[in-house]
Every structure is written in structure tokens, then in C-alpha cells.
């Protein structure tokens, strides 16, 4: 065993081996993998090997597609076959709304680069004559997907890694880790110690206990999954093309061919078992399985046999019951571990064989180059944090796993573990019909269902339409109030605070107390990393307000950077403050009734901040409005939320004040042409593509990403952000729709909304600069149909900002 390497990967399952292979591919050859038993001996060896291409969104589509491509070509490179079976796959749809999901995703898949077609029941029968189609309106077919032999696939990756110089130490038991003063990691094993710069934990269902050695709470839940393999079935014929994998939401199961037999597995929607969430897995649990329990899954097996009767006509050869580490959002955990330098996590995939290759590649890029080729926020370990205890993690993981085969139309929210954070106004909002979404534990109103019906999620316009319209019109005509407490908030203080912030953010920090700016953190290469509103509260003290879901990630970015600056202190104050945004033409009149602070333009101009007192509560008020109206964001100490909310209503009741939610806010900001962080601004774009140059101060001596940005500016951009109106009435923009010109895809929609005040469907999107012809019409593909769209040159509403400044 070597004594010193660049990186050590712990764990020889598909995630560990893929990480090792891709690290070698990205250019690190002095690396090693340590596995306590044999490769694949945890979860990988008993996986069903499925590589689906029907995924939830574009990020997953890229991830899965990469895996499928790699498994088909890997043997050529490594000499070891992966056992790839390119049999294609069919997913059934039970009703038109579900079929809309297929239509939405088929567009995404085609843009990503693989075929997916919508099928009628007759066409499904042609591809698989053995399936019964009761309760199905159709489905979709991805001809390029298939399955591999998990063992062979892992060994093929291992062979590839070895060829590139990586070492694999099997039967080597890691006993602990120590971070040395040099920052390097010492990995202690039963065969001796090995020191490395970077440490990757790909420890699968052992991750919770391994994480504990490092004081790291890995939100994994070990979920039991069972599948059955039959003996030879008369419906299989090895001389013919293999049957496509069938995925059936009605029985929550998949069925595929396995040699001459069939293989089927149900994901039980209500009897899911988790194990080992209160105790550790024995280290000796190696190539091991659990006792099957078919009784638990009987209702779904019955439905599965009804769907695929041949499955019931032959004997069941074996039942595999094993456990798999799942996460609370069914997305793997891949990337930097919070709080630790050069510690990386990889695992937590429900379909690890499919996602292992892509996750390994992204992790390797992150480690070697500092960034990933695509936005990897959906994998980032720092999307979770201390707000979630183990009970929440288990509850939510069970819910998302049980829901795995269901569609999640826009507007769908999970129910478990809520509410986690409840402000004083929660009950009040609830009584008013608030429909909430949970954002990192906060309950944020999406809209107010004034008839109490709640939301009926749908792929087309849903039942929130009339209420959201009412909310939008209130903001434009009188006043609206929305709860944005979920914002992440950080206090930054210290004598170096201003210099440090100027070094890591691209905009110039405010110099005057009460000054504020919108600023972005960029990667070294100039891509968007984070967005925050930064306000100078007093000398050497700033409050940073950022997107809700990025709370722990941004905290980690700030903290890791601040560590090198003695004169800077970063504190997460997210849960100490709530936020109410008051906006609309009557907002000054409302606010003036409850505070003595002057609110006129001279005393409190647009884009400034003041400390004001409302009902004895000290509030940080920012004169900004994402809705594009006269308005204030009020950041209120959490215990004062109830008092301020009540005071605002007391004052605003007669002035048309109405609660509104994020749906209305989205509609209003689209009207104003304001981009959103996370959709328009992502780590796949720089300020040049997005055209947000006015928030980038290239005159500053230096900031992270400045040089790359200057170089890029000289070269020109390949994509640019466009703002458009789409001629469509019955559908809402979801995000992820393709933009067409002359029958070719030239771009993608990032986000949009129906603008109720202007009565237009508006959207943002990126188009390829060299393909987009500004004098020709464009179309946007929505649920299988193309709708014409026209590019807008400026905001639909108040382009001169007179409302904001009024």
C-alpha cells in the first residue's frame, strides 16, 4: 500500500469506483480506493442494474444519459464488459395529466440528446405484446435505455481506473480519519496508514456511522427494496430483441427481462421499511441480503402481475431484499462536505448504477477543477443542514421513496415533517387559505386559496389562477404583503469585512451606512456561484440576504473563505429574522401609520436601508421591491413577526392590503423583467450571458472571477438571455421548455409566468447566439406543441422604474 496519494476514495461500490475512474480521467493518477471487502459488496452487487432515461428534469437527464453512453463504450477502453443490454424502456401513463409529464420530459430528453417518444396504447402493445393496458392512456418510450450487470460495470470502471494508474486496495478496513495540521487527511487502516490531500467517502449504507467519525451528519436512510427474478418465461426469446423495461406507476414497479426470465420490483407506496436508522450496520454485512417479505408488497405484486400476466405464470427463482441508502429528496449526495476542507461525499442514490457514472464524473470535476460542467446544486451535500433532524430525514425519505413512481406536477409539495419552522403568523396565514411550500424548513405561502380548496397541481394552468390574479392586481393597484422569511441571512462583521466582501463579490460594497447592493459571488472561471443583497448596517457590519434554498451552501462558501481572514466573522442569522415584503402604491401610506421613521424619497430613497421601529420592534427596512412597486422589505426579529404583521394589517385593511405568495411575486417580477437566481442565474452562466453587467464592477481592483470575466468578455458569449412573450393561454411556463427556430432547438426556457396585470405569458430563456436569428420568428415547445413567441427588448411593466422610485 502506498503511504501518500493525492486522493483516497473509501468504498468500492459503483459510486466509489466511478469516482476513482473519473478522478483518473480528469488527470489525477496518484489516487487509491480502499474497500473493506470486495468491490460491489455493499449495495451495488444486488442492484437490479437499471439505467432509465426517463428522469425528472434536465439535470438528471444529463446525468443518466452520460451513464448510458459510458456503459456502452467502456469495454472498448477497459477491456472489461459492462453487461450492457440496450433494450429500451416504456413508462405508462394513467391519465392525460400524467401523459403531459411525459410530453414535457420528452422535449427535455430530445434537447439533451436522446430519443423519447410518446406512445398510444396500441404502440405500447407493439413493443411489448405481453403488457395489459387497463387504466392507461398511453406512455413513452426511450429506445436508448437499458440495464447493465452491476458487478461487471463496476469492475469495468475499476479496470479503467487501474489502467490510468489508480490503485485499489481490497480487504482493507478503514479504522478512522485524522485531518493533519497540513490540511491533509490521514486514513488509518488495518493494513497501515495512508495520507492524502483529498478524501472521498463513498461508503453507501455505512455512511452515517463513518460520517460520525468526522462529526458529519450524512442525511442517508437505509431503505429496503425487494425485487423478484423468475425462472425462464415463454415470453422471452433470446434470439429476439429483449423486451423493453416496463415502468408502471399503477403498481409502482418495474419489470424487465433477465436472461430467459423476468425481473420485477415494486416500490411500495405505503409499507416501506427502513432499517438501521437507530443502530449501526455490522461491518461484516458484506455480500449480504435481508430476508424477503413479500407480504408487505403483495398489493403491488398483484397489480404487477395484472399488468404483466406472464410474470405470474412461471416460478419465482429468487427474491432479492437488500438495502440502499436514500436521501430525503431522492437525489444523490455528491460534492464537498460542509465545514471540512477537501472532504467529499458520494452516494445516496436510489438508482446508483444509473447515476454512478455521472456522479463520479461531476465529483471528479469538482475536486480536480473546482467546478462542475453543469449546475450540480441538486447533488450538493450542502443542500441539507442542521435544520433537519434524523426523524425528519427518515420521514421525508420514506415519503419521497414511496412516491417515486408518481408524477410531481408544478405545484406539488411533499407533506411529511411539516411545518418545521413556524413563525407567529403561520396560523394566521393558514386561516386565510395560504398554500405553503417548504423551503429548507420554512413554510412560505405560494398563494392564498381563498375558497379553502387548496392547490390541485397540474401540468397546465391550475386552480390557483384566479387567486393569484387577485393578488397581483392588489399589488399593482393598492398594496400586497408577502412572507419571505425563508431568505437566508448572514451577518458579516469585523474590520476587514468590507475588503473581504469586495474580494469575493463582483459588485462594489456599499460604503455609506444604509447603502445596499445586489452582488454575486462568481467562480474562478466567472460563473455565478451565489447572489445576495448586501446592506451596510453600521461600520464594519453588513447583512447579507440570499436565496432560501442555498442557506447552508452559501454559509459554507462564506465561512470557508472567511477562515483565512482574521478580521471577519460570519454568522448565520437565518432563523433569527423573519421577512415581510410590503409593496404597491399604497405601501408608504400603510407603513407611515405604524412607524415614525420618515419614508419620503429624500429620507428613505429607493435602494437604501434604514433601521425603523414598528410597534416597538426594531426592523431592518430595505427599500426594494422584486414586484417592481414602491415597497419595503422588512427584516424583523423573529419574535416580532406577529406584532408587525398585525400592525400592517391594522393600517392596511382599508387601503386594499392583501396577502400574496410566491406565485404572484413570480408573475410580478416577470412583468418587470427581473431574473431569478437559480433559474436565469446559475453556475452554468456568467454575467455576460445573463447580461447583468450593471452588478459587476470591473473597475474594482480585483474579485474572484474578474480575470476570467475580462477574458470572456473579449472572446464573446455563445449564449444569451432573452425575455419573451409566448402566445399561449391554457398553459403555464414550467421552465425547461425548448426554444425553436426554423424547426431547430436554439435554446431553453429558464422560467416564466403568466403576467396577470399585463395579461401576457412571459418567459426568460437562453438562446445560442450563433443560431438565433433576431429577424425570424421563434417558438416555444410546451407539452408537445409549439407556440409562437416574440422577444421583448425591455420590461413589460414600468421600464423606467417610476413606480419603484415613486
Amino acid at each position: 500500500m502506498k503511504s501518500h496519494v493525492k486522493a483516497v476514495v473509501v468504498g468500492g461500490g459503483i459510486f466509489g469506483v466511478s469516482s476513482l475512474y473519473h478522478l483518473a480521467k480528469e488527470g489525477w493518477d496518484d489516487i487509491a480506493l480502499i474497500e473493506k471487502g470486495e468491490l460491489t459488496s455493499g449495495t451495488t452487487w444486488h442492484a437490479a442494474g437499471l439505467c432509465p432515461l426517463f428522469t425528472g428534469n434536465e439535470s438528471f437527464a444529463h446525468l443518466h444519459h452520460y451513464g448510458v453512453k459510458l456503459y456502452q463504450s467502456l469495454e472498448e477502453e477497459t477491456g472489461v464488459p459492462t453487461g450492457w443490454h440496450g433494450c429500451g424502456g416504456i413508462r405508462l401513463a394513467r391519465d392525460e395529466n400524467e401523459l403531459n409529464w411525459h410530453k414535457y420530459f420528452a422535449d427535455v430528453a430530445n434537447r439533451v440528446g436522446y430519443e423519447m417518444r410518446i406512445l398510444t396504447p396500441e404502440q405500447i402493445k407493439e413493443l411489448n405484446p405481453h403488457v395489459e393496458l387497463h387504466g392507461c392512456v398511453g406512455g413513452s418510450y426511450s429506445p436508448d435505455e437499458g440495464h447493465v450487470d452491476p458487478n461487471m460495470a463496476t469492475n469495468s470502471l475499476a479496470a479503467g481506473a487501474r489502467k490510468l494508474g489508480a490503485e485499489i486496495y481490497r480487504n482493507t478496513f478503514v479504522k478512522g480519519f485524522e485531518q493533519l495540521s497540513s490540511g491533509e487527511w490521514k486514513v488509518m487502516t488495518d493494513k497501515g496508514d495512508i495520507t492524502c490531500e483529498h478524501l472521498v467517502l463513498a461508503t453507501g449504507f455505512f455512511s452515517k456511522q463513518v460520517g460520525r467519525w468526522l462529526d458529519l451528519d450524512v442525511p442517508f436512510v437505509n431503505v429496503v427494496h425487494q425485487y423478484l427474478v423468475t425462472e425462464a418465461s415463454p415470453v422471452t426469446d433470446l434470439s429476439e430483441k429483449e423486451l423493453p423495461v416496463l415502468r408502471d406507476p399503477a403498481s409502482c414497479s418495474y419489470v424487465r427481462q433477465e436472461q430467459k426470465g423476468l425481473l420485477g420490483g415494486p416500490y411500495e407506496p405505503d409499507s416501506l421499511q427502513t432499517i438501521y436508522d437507530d443502530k449501526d450496520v455490522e461491518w461484516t454485512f458484506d455480500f449480504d441480503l435481508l430476508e424477503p417479505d413479500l407480504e408487505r408488497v403483495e398489493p403491488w405484486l398483484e397489480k404487477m402481475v395484472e399488468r404483466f400476466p406472464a410474470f405470474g405464470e412461471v416460478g419465482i427463482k429468487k427474491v432479492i431484499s437488500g438495502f440502499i441508502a436514500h436521501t430525503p429528496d431522492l437525489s444523490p449526495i455528491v460534492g464537498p462536505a460542509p465545514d471540512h476542507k477537501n472532504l467529499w461525499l458520494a452516494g445516496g442514490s436510489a438508482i446508483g448504477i444509473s447515476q454512478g457514472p455521472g456522479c463520479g464524473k461531476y465529483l471528479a470535476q469538482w475536486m480536480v477543477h473546482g467546478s462542475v460542467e453543469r449546475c450540480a446544486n441538486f447533488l450538493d451535500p450542502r443542500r441539507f443542514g442542521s435544520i433537519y433532524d434524523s426523524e425528519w430525514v427518515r420521514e421525508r425519505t420514506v415519503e419521497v421513496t414511496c412516491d417515486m413512481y408518481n408524477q410531481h406536477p408544478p405545484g406539488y409539495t411533499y407533506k411529511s415533517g411539516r411545518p418545521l419552522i413556524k413563525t407567529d403568523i403561520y396560523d394566521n396565514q393558514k386561516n386565510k387559505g395560504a398554500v405553503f411550500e417548504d423551503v429548507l424548513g420554512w413554510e412560505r405561502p405560494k398563494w392564498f386559496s381563498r375558497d379553502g380548496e387548496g392547490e390541485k397541481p397540474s401540468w397546465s394552468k391550475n386552480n390557483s389562477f384566479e387567486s393569484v390574479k387577485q393578488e397581483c392586481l392588489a399589488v399593482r393597484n393598492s398594496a400586497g404583503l408577502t412572507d419571505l422569511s425563508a431568505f437566508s441571512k448572514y451577518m458579516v462583521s469585523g474590520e476587514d469585512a468590507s475588503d473581504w466582501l469586495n474580494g469575493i463579490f463582483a459588485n462594489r460594497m456599499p460604503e455609506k451606512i444604509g447603502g445596499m447592493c445586489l452582488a454575486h459571488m462568481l467562480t474562478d472561471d466567472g460563473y455565478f456561484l451565489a447572489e445576495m443583497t448586501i446592506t451596510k448596517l453600521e461600520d464594519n457590519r453588513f447583512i447579507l440576504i440570499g436565496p432560501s434554498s442555498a442557506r447552508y451552501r452559501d454559509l459554507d462558501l462564506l465561512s470557508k473563505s472567511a477562515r483565512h481572514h482574521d478580521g471577519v466573522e460570519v454568522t448565520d442569522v437565518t432563523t433569527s429574522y423573519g421577512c415581510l415584503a410590503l409593496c404597491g402604491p399604497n405601501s408608504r401610506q400603510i407603513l407611515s401609520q405604524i412607524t415614525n421613521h420618515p419614508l419620503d424619497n429624500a429620507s428613505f430613497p429607493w435602494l437604501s436601508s434604514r433601521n425603523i421601529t414598528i410597534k416597538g420592534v426594531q426592523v431592518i427596512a430595505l427599500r426594494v421591491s422584486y414586484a417592481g412597486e414602491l415597497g419595503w422589505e422588512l427584516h424583523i426579529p423573529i419574535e416580532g413577526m406577529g406584532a408587525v404583521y398585525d400592525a400592517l394589517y391594522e393600517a392596511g385593511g382599508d387601503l386594499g392590503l392583501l396577502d400574496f405568495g410566491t406565485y404572484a411575486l413570480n408573475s410580478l417580477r416577470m412583468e418587470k423583467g427581473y431574473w431569478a437566481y437559480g433559474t436565469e442565474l446559475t453556475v452554468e452562466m456568467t454575467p455576460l450571458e445573463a447580461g447583468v453587467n450593471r452588478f459587476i464592477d470591473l473597475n474594482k481592483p480585483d474579485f474572484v472571477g474578474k480575470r476570467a470575466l475580462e477574458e470572456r468578455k473579449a472572446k464573446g458569449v455563445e449564449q444569451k438571455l432573452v425575455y419573451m412573450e409566448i402566445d399561449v393561454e391554457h398553459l403555464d411556463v414550467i421552465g425547461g421548455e425548448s426554444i425553436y427556430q426554423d424547426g431547430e432547438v436554439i435554446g431553453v426556457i429558464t422560467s416564466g409566468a403568466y403576467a396577470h396585470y399585463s395579461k401576457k405569458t412571459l418567459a426568460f430563456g437562453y438562446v445560442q447566439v450563433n443560431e438565433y436569428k433576431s429577424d425570424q420568428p421563434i417558438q416555444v415547445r410546451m407539452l408537445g406543441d409549439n407556440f409562437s413567441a416574440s422577444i421583448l427588448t425591455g420590461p413589460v411593466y414600468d421600464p423606467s422604474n417610476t413606480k419603484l422610485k415613486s
Partner: protein
Amino acid sequence: MKVVVMVKRVADPNVNIRVKEDGSGVDLENVKMAINPFCEIAVEEAIQLKDKGQAKEVVAVSVGGKDSEDQLRTALAVGADRGILVEAERDLEPLAVSKLIAKVLEEENPDLVILGKQAIDSENSQVGQMVAALMGFSQGTFASELTLKDGEVEVTREVDSGLQTLSLKLPAIITADLRLNEPRYASLPNIMKAKRKPITTVSAEDMSVDITPRIQTLQVEAPTDRKAGKILSSVKELVEKLRTHEELI
């Protein structure tokens, strides 16, 4: 004709066996369990007799913990008609098991009893023989072929010197060897139907049988790890190694 077939719950032969840290036995917590493979062959033979119309009823019997019901269900899923579980603490010795089985047989009065030749967990190969002795039944152990004739059963046994064919008077005890047949798999609908077939549970303690342990377990140890092999370049080198290093020849 009534056939009783015995099934035993054992750790699945495909999973790794772990010895408890204190050396008191094998750790079966969270281990996949299965029907003893030889019992599976016994069940298959009984079902085949039923398929041929020679057996009218097949009763599957298991002695063990409550969980052994799973293995009885497996037997019911492939075609046994009903099950009897003699519920007892898990680690009964062969003689105690045999006495309990004998009690059941006295009640059931079968013409033929088929067991596996041994269980893969403790590898004793004692119960069939002991039951035969207790019941005074004729016995044909390690059967590789079985033919029913009028009031008799002809059994081919695999013995060291070749094949031995015995003709046994009924009622008889047969223990199944590996080559007796190839067990079938139950189909999914039959697995589900098996849940509705009757299983009678009797408590071992209520059967007035002395099941007191007579053997004391001192220590259970895992076999020592096998050393890695070496690949040699020639026969000559092999002979030399055997002579000099291993002192085997």
C-alpha cells in the same frame, strides 16, 4: 396416501455466515433465511407424488421458531396442502426434534414421510434415522430415486460403493439426497395463495416430550481464512514446492 414432509428454516446458503462476537453461536440477526435445500427436494418429491395422483394429501411440518412459518409457506406455495408448525426454541437437538416429529406422526398417521438427508446449518444428518427408529418405520436414507409400488416404496440410495436399491414396506421414512429431483419454483400467484392455506401451530412444550438439551456448546468459531494461492510456472516447480515447502510428498 398421505405424505408428511419435513422442512427446516436455515440461513440462506448464498449469504455469508457470521459468528457472534462472544462465540456463542451464529449471528442470524438480519440474515436472509431460507428453506433447507434438502428439505426443498423432499417437498418436491412429495408434490411430484401428488402430481402423479399417488399421494392424496401432502402435509408440511416444521419444528422451529414462529418464523419457520415462512418456510412452511414456501412448501405450501409449491403445492403442499397444509402445514403444521411445532413451535419451539430454535436450537433443539436432533433427538428432541425427532421426538417431536414422532409425536406429530402418531397423530397424522402418514404412509410416507420424506425429509432432507441433512440440514445445511448443523449438518447432523440424524433426524430421519432417529424418527424411523422412534416410529418403527422402515427407512431409506440418501434417496436418489423413489418409486411407489403397491404397499411398498422402492428407493435407490447413493452409497459409497455405488447405487443400492431397497424395497421398503409402508409406512416408511425417506431422506432425500441432492439428485432425487430438481425442486420447482413457486409462481407469484401460488406464493400469494399459500397465505390462505391452513397452518396449525402446536407448542413443543405441550407435547409431553423431553426436549432438554444434552449437548453443551462450548465455542463457535469461524473457519480460518483461506490463504491466497500461488500460480506456479511448471509442474516441476509444483513438485518441488510440495516437497520442500509444504512437505506434502
